[in-house]
């Protein structure tokens, strides 16, 4: 048994066998510089104070913890609370991380920001903070995602960002990340790469988790206030896994708290068309870290599939891979159809339209809550709002807008 699940990564960026710094030499001095800058910033109360101020007045934190009364009644089991990250400025949890990184970039004197995005939530958050601080911003987005997330593409452009549709490979999130890395390796002196999830080379996975951990810290104090105790169950969707790490990290050393990460099972794990890296993959090395990946027997990366562009990634953050290996978090699959049903049910019962990403977590809460007694409490991370998904869902449901 480990004494604590909250001590990672080690000084070489490892979570068990996962993590590390698998990058080209050109980038190595840059990530060492970033690590040093982040370590210094963490120890600087002025940095934290600046962040707290923007989190309160610009992002709108704390986000509410909301008792989903009608959903709970409908399911007849554990009480379901929703952590309302979708109410943040820009509509998702992504802004928590972007704020931390942009303030860090400013401290480091970087003058140009690049980012990758899948659903566009991280791209929108990055474009937003860049607008706020007057920084030029380039967002790499797979051409397929540009197509299916048109509202977010337009938002990013309104915010002044340049959106580059990536035509290489599968034209989705992994290819956007390749292209962002190629930009970074080319523009080393002035550019800061704002990674959107708890993946990539060390120090990104731990750093992004730190920025997102405010979700779990708030949840703990709000839960103590509302229920006078810890939650029994946590549920969050996992693509790269930043909203999930943000919620989970605070509770990893609370043995009474059962934790579920929900992977996108697409058309079903058995069909091979999914994005469930832990459930359907094996350890490999991509995008700067070792972690569970979807790949073939020759180590070639496979295309992921999910109804949700934000989960459509063949990997997962290395800390999740480790939490799986040590058995602290249970990773469970959710199909496109289950997510689509949950999307509609939550909308009808609570008047909250979840992002398709978050709908995966809602779907598993719908499955798990009835199996648990009514005196138990479950927290679901509602990581993003679904406005961006309305055109896509309308099309799937056969409605033309």
């Amino acid at each position: 048994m480990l004494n604590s699940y909250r001590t990672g990564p080690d000084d070489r960026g490892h979570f068990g066998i996962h993590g590390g710094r698998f990058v080209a030499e050109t980038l190595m001095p840059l990530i060492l510089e970033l690590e040093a800058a982040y370590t210094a910033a963490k120890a600087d109360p002025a940095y934290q104070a600046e962040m707290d101020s923007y989190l309160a007045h610009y992002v709108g934190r704390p986000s509410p913890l909301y008792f989903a009364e009608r959903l709970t009644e409908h399911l007849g089991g554990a009480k379901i609370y929703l952590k309302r990250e979708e109410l943040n400025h820009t509509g998702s949890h992504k802004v928590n991380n972007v704020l931390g990184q942009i303030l860090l970039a400013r401290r480091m004197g970087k003058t140009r920001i690049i980012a990758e995005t899948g659903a566009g939530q991280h791209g929108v958050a990055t474009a937003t903070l860049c607008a706020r601080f007057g920084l030029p911003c380039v967002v790499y987005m797979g051409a397929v995602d540009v197509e299916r997330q048109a509202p977010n593409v337009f938002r990013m452009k309104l915010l002044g960002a340049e959106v580059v549709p990536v035509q290489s490979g599968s034209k989705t999130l992994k290819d956007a990340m390749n292209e962002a890395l190629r930009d970074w390796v080319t523009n080393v002196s002035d550019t800061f790469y704002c990674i959107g999830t708890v993946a990539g080379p060390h120090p990104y996975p731990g750093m992004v988790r730190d920025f997102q951990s405010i979700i779990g810290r708030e949840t703990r104090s709000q839960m103590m206030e509302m229920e006078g105790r810890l939650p029994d169950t946590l549920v969050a969707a996992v693509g790269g896994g930043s909203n999930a790490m943000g919620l989970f990290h605070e509770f990893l050393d609370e043995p009474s708290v059962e934790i579920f990460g929900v992977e996108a099972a697409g058309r079903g794990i058995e069909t091979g068309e999914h994005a469930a890296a832990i459930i359907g993959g094996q350890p490999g090395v991509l995008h700067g870290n070792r972690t569970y990946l979807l790949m073939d027997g020759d180590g070639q990366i496979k295309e992921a599939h999910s109804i949700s562009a934000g989960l459509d990634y063949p990997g997962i953050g290395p800390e999740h891979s480790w939490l799986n290996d040590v058995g602290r978090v249970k990773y469970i699959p959710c199909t496109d159809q289950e997510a689509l049903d949950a999307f509609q049910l939550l909308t009808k019962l609570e008047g909250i339209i979840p992002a398709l990403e978050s709908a995966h977590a809602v779907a598993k809460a719908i499955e798990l809550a009835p199996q648990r007694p009514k005196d138990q409490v479950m927290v679901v991370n509602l990581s993003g709002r679904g406005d961006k998904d309305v055109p896509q869902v309308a099309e799937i449901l056969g409605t033309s807008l």
Partner: protein
Amino acid sequence: MSDPMTTRIAARFAALKAEGRPALVTFITAGDPDAETSLGILKTLPGAGADIIELGIPFTDPMADGPAIQAAGLRALKGGQTLAKTLAMVKMFRVEDDATPIVLMGYYNPIYVYGVDRFLADALAAGVDGLIIVDLPPEEDDELCLPALKAGIDFIRLATPTTDEHRLPVVLRNTAGFVYYVSITGITGSATPDADVVGKAVTRIKAHTPLPVAVGFGVKTPEQAKAIAAGADGVVVGSALVEAVRRTLDESGAATANTVPAVEALVEGLAAAVRSVRR
């Protein structure tokens, strides 16, 4: 660790030093556009004037490569290329040529999935002399670099414009065979390096190591190769060669009768330019 006097890489650089000229290092992607054509290209390279051959291991997500080598890798994968087939290709090449050094270049994941120990044993048996693995910096030496050196395969490190004086010794520490200087900050086949700037960087590196220094990334024409080679122990050309492959393919992407001769002619031109450099 391998005896530096017995390796093909050391022997080749020693011979070139005696001749008083730099090396032409040519890169092709293994299996591009198909295994047979690719082996045909590989076999013509030494005769066309390649002194050292870098053989690219195709990978779906080559994050340090530009569009030309990305496309070559995808063509090879579409043609069914695997790491096992790439090793078999080296073995077939070695039947006829036991002198030209072959360096496998690529990314770590295919090797990691193949299994490091199994890979090193098979690579050694096939006649591989060195490895350039783009996403394994010194910080990850335990993964493959140290096992490779122990097995007798050179681990050739990339030094870059961002590798400063402080970091250079870290980069050179477990490097063997030669040092590959990346002439630009960027991806393969992109910006054209400035020969003067590169020459100064090579001089700086050579102050830290007795190893030969070859320069690559962005070198496309015989003129550029000649200019870069004048200030280095070798010059690497890659994207231009895989582009020559692409230009000869038919509409369905298949090789034509021109594919092998086109690469051969390009290498001959590059070799003539590089061989005109005397020191």
